[in-house]
């Protein structure tokens, strides 16, 4: 399986990433998820901090786990860091597989684990106030269901 993991301030092109995933082999299905900064009232910006090295390692472990559960030909995870404006893309998870079911499920699995395991933290700026986003218990439950 081909795995691409990028942590970067720059934006990404979904078309280019999907094209790269389907350039080789015979993946009949690509499922992708893109997360954006929500446009919420007074939200001025979101700043993302991460734990360099551990982030890449943790996402690679999650991708390996996904590949052990579903027959995948490629996984791409791009996560942006730094300051992002409302509406901006934050994260891309794209999965290539022979059939759609594996692609859909692996994509959801990767996002659930990324949200609960990859060491990123979001700080919101509202007006002149800054505060750290709290983790959601619902995200933990979403990841836990894959243990069943």
């Amino acid at each position, binding site marked *: 399986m081909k795995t691409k993991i990028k942590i970067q301030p720059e934006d990404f092109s979904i078309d280019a990433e999907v094209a790269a995933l389907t350039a080789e082999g015979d993946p009949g299905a690509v499922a992708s998820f893109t997360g954006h900064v929500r446009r919420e009232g007074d939200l001025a910006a979101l700043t993302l901090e*991460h*734990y360099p090295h551990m982030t890449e390692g943790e996402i690679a472990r999650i991708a390996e786990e996904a590949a052990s559960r579903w027959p995948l030909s490629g996984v791409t995870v791009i996560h942006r860091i730094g300051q992002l404006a409302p509406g901006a893309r934050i994260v891309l998870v794209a999965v290539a597989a022979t059939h759609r079911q594996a692609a859909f499920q692996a994509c959801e699995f990767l996002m659930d684990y990324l*949200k609960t395991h990859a*060491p*990123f*933290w*979001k700080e919101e700026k509202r007006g002149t106030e800054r505060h750290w986003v*709290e*983790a959601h218990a619902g995200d933990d439950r979403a990841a836990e269901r894959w243990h069943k």
Partner: protein
Amino acid sequence: MTLLYFAWVRQKIGKHEENLALPAGVATVADLVAYLKRLGPGYAEAFADESRIRVAVNQRHGKFDAAVAADDEVAFFPPVTGG
């Protein structure tokens, strides 16, 4: 050992990284947290509610009963909020 702090843990302690000689009697993450809490008000505030603190030892998620050694990299941070 190398200690790393992220997000509000970093802000409360007032630094991102520091080196520490393994203190006497510290064998686990929990021992280390108890030791750090006594280093100053910023540390005490950062670790006041241990249920809000997560730890990684050598860049792997760990628990408070995990062992720590002199050459480990130990990171403290809030529950993650990426994605």
